[in-house]
């Protein structure tokens, strides 16, 4: 089973279990989903519940908000994170705001899925990692599943949430193979998790970078460096406790984020570690982030724009070997 299959399976379960649930977005029906996530669902559930939309991001995201207010549980698919900017008015000014602005009267159980991340030579309109931006917004939750179990379970959890939830699926993960337990269901979305324990340093990351960090950690282990890999899972709200615990054991932290460095989620995490675990740190917190350029097309340039296992390993080694 792939990550893609795990998401499809969760959507199918949700559609079967709750007749308020429906999927809408560009090419989710007849085309089968831009990334084939919803392939086959139209035949099973029909065009009312697997609803193709025109290329009108603002209108169909806003329609998701209205449908949620009207008692439905919409799953809104946005083809790619860059396109979500066309719907930012609805996400920020309505979805994230209505509950507060109405004095608690109108909650918005809207669930949006979108594709994020680079690595496919799609250049600057299809490759960015803007989930950190979204994590800036109070009123929404931002989830970044790295595993099949999370991709499947977070979706089911998101549909039970009374408030807007955004899930960012990194496109490079869709073909990742894995196992899903037969009894897989909703997963908690409150905590970060340690994907690999280690005593020397905490690499804090999410999404595809979790796998790159794990690959780096395997290589580093051969050199005697034990790297702890922490998967954030949820970017908003951040689970400070797990991060502080990890850093309190390893005393070093490297934050790896495909997103841009300036003003990014990595800066936020670094600040929190400084605020909450300053005296646990044996070295200053370091960050390995996406280069501050619009994503280039050429493969070697794109590769250089995004943290890779080798650059993570080099950064870790540099931190652990140096004293301070």
């Amino acid at each position, binding site marked *: 089973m792939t990550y893609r299959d795990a998401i499809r399976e969760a959507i199918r379960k949700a559609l079967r279990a709750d007749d308020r649930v429906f999927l809408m977005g560009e090419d989710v029906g007849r085309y089968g989903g831009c990334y084939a996530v919803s392939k086959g669902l139209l035949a099973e559930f029909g065009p009312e519940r697997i609803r193709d*939309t025109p290329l*009108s991001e603002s*209108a169909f995201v806003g329609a998701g908000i209205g449908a949620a*207010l*009207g008692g*439905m549980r919409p799953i809104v698919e946005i083809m790619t994170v860059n396109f979500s900017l066309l719907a930012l008015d609805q996400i920020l000014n309505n979805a994230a705001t209505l509950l507060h602005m109405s004095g608690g*009267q109108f909650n918005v159980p809207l669930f949006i899925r979108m594709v994020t991340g680079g690595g496919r030579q799609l250049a600057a309109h299809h490759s960015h990692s803007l989930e950190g931006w979204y994590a800036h917004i109070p009123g929404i939750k931002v989830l970044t599943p790295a595993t099949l179990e999370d991709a499947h379970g977070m979706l089911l959890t998101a549909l039970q949430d009374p*408030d807007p939830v955004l899930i960012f699926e990194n496109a490079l993960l869709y073909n990742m193979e894995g196992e899903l337990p037969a009894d897989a269901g909703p997963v908690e979305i409150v905590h970060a998790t340690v994907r690999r324990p280690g005593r020397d340093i905490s690499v804090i990351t999410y999404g595809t970078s979790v796998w790159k960090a794990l690959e780096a950690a395997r290589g580093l282990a051969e050199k005697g460096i034990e790297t702890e890999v922490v998967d954030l899972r949820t970017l908003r709200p951040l689970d400070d406790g797990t991060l502080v615990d990890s850093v309190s054991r390893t005393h070093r932290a490297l934050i790896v984020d495909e997103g841009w460095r300036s003003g990014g989620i990595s800066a936020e995490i670094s600040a929190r570690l400084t605020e909450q675990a300053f005296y646990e740190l044996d070295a200053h917190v370091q960050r390995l982030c996406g280069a501050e350029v619009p994503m280039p097309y050429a493969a070697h340039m794109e590769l250089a724009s995004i943290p890779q296992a080798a650059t993570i390993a080099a950064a870790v080694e540099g931190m652990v070997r140096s004293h301070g």
Partner: protein
Amino acid sequence: MMERDHLLVLLRQMILIRRFEEKCAELYTQQKIRGFLHLYIGEEAVGVGVIQALRAEDTIVSTYREHGHALARGMPAGSIMAEMFGKQEGCSRGRGGSMHLFDAKTRFYGGNAVVGGGLPVAVGLALADKMRAQQRVTCCFFGDGAVAEGEFHECMNLAALWKLPLLFVCENNRYAMGTRLDVSHSQTDLSKKAAAYCVPASAVDGMDVLAVEDAAKSAIQRVRSGEGPYFLECRTYRFRAHSMYDPELYRNKAEVEEWKKRDPIPALIRRIEEDGTTAEPDVAQIERQVAKEIEEAIAFAESGTWEPVEDLLRFVYSERPA
């Protein structure tokens, strides 16, 4: 007699809105009301006529110029006034203010202050009703300014494509803040834009409450019968500035005075008196009742309480399960 009673109901609502807002302007200069304050004065016939044609189970999505809609919908004047005072007894607990009135009880989904931002939400509310086989109509108010927004065009298409039970009410007051219609639209006949998306459309004199009510009734009947959305353009005019900050440099006084001759309130009084009877005692009684209602609303707002600052972070996320 029945008809006269009905006309008096409409008259009472328009006078309530007019006097309420005149009071708001006064309270604004006294700094009891702060922020932006957009008055509906001159446009009362639109909200009153349209909302009169709706049922209690129907839904309203509105704009930042929505006091008139809220009052016509039957939201208590006190809860609106308290909201503008910033008190927690206000309809949005003081979290919204003048531009963001909300009321679940009357299915009033706000006060949206991003021009055009309410349209997609209205599309979704109507979609939910259609998918759940509810016999409701969603009524979405917006101005001529919103028609220039991309969201308007996206929503016309979507509503028509999905045949949603949605009444679009365009309050065309000829100015998007200070920009005149013909300065911002290549096609100033706005109903043609809706028609281009296969949304049936018509325009009505928005200074004539009976014409608006009639037009809204037949539009709503079509929408309710499952024929899909309808676009009703109400041609109207705001007598006051865009907001309390607006020095009105973009239009001349003569134009405003010309429109004031078409004030919907005296026009309705003349209509009532067409049968030769005087409306004077009725008007006097309405004015007395309305004055009392507004006085009570202000007293309610004055005696309201400030939400404790400790509650600041409430309502960012739900406090109840889904």
